[in-house]
């Protein structure tokens, strides 16, 4: 999306939204980033190609980048990235979670429902859950 279509400005837009959700101090960027960033390896049909070990080896660069940030959550823009980064964390035992941007937005707005928290870990999975859930009889 950044390199092929909208350029750096869309990378800045996404960072603006994410920082507004999690707070400036909780945002850690990867390096290199924006137009110089590395592809995670989930795109181009790689996920369906059957070359699983090659796909994971490809993703090692992204995994190392993520580990370098020390971040607990990785926000991905599309479903292919989501599947790949999720698999990288599992395969390399990185211990990070991977969530869609919309999950973080809804969480910060206090509107993330109980069934929409599959990719949040224990420290966040209950956060604000009562406020957005109706009692069973209501």
């Amino acid at each position, binding site marked *: 999306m950044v390199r092929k279509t909208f350029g750096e400005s869309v990378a800045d837009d996404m960072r603006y939204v994410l920082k507004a959700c999690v707070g400036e101090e909780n945002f850690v960027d990867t390096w290199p980033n924006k137009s110089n960033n590395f592809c995670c390896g989930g795109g181009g049909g790689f996920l369906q190609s059957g070359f699983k070990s090659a796909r994971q080896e490809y993703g090692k660069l992204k995994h190392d980048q993520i580990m370098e940030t020390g971040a607990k959550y990785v926000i991905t823009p599309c*479903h292919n990235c989501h599947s790949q980064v999720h698999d990288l964390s599992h395969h390399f035992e990185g211990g990070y979670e991977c969530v869609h941007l919309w999950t973080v937005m809804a969480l910060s707005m206090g509107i993330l429902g109980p069934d929409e928290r599959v990719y949040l870990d224990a420290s966040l999975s209950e956060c604000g859950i009562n406020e957005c859930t109706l009692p069973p009889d209501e």
Partner: protein
Amino acid sequence: MADAALKLGAEPKETFMDKVRNLLPEEGHLNLCLTCGACSSGCPATGLEGMDPRKFLRMAALGMDEEVTSTPWVWMCTMCTRCVHACPMQINIPQLVFQARKSWPEEKKPRGIVQSCKAAMIDKATSSMGATSEDFVESVEETLEQVRSQQRGYKDLQVTFDRKGAKYFLNQNSREPMAEPDEMVPLWKIMHEAGADWTYGTAGWAAENYCMFAGNDEEWEKIVRTKAEAVDALGCEYWLNTE
């Protein structure tokens, strides 16, 4: 001991790279390689199958057509275009990769990609999982009903299909309605809170396009046209692609 010298064909012939050059704007700059290796140094696919972007381009330039059009490496390059960005000459290596994918016989291409493309041809939904428009509507309506009955403040949450004149046409990766329907809900609520005037379409709702990855020009164009026509038919101003 050194490897045996490579013998290049003595007869001039139109190489694979010549053909690709003729297809691309400004010939894809394919003849401008300085052999610096900036492409390969930042490519996550470097080393897979003993290949890297510079090597691939150099082999094509040397007319090693058989090697270039048979290496499985072309399926391990995601065509992310980082090599083009890093290249001082802006050489379009990803298009060379794409054309090499195209040159593979259909039955030798990775089956998963080909089948995902075929599945999208079944229905106007264009879903690589073979999900139909009815499947999509059913999944959305079932999920919406749950949200309305369980979540505070969303008793009247609306999700529409094929609503003419909506400002935004939203699509969705098939895996969401078909495998993880709850992942669609935060998006609905964000659109609702933003006051966005949006609709889903029953045609062209699936965001992915595996025919492009399969190097199947005719079918990937068909998918894009189906989607674009669905947006136009509703008169939507924006097409929001979530992929």
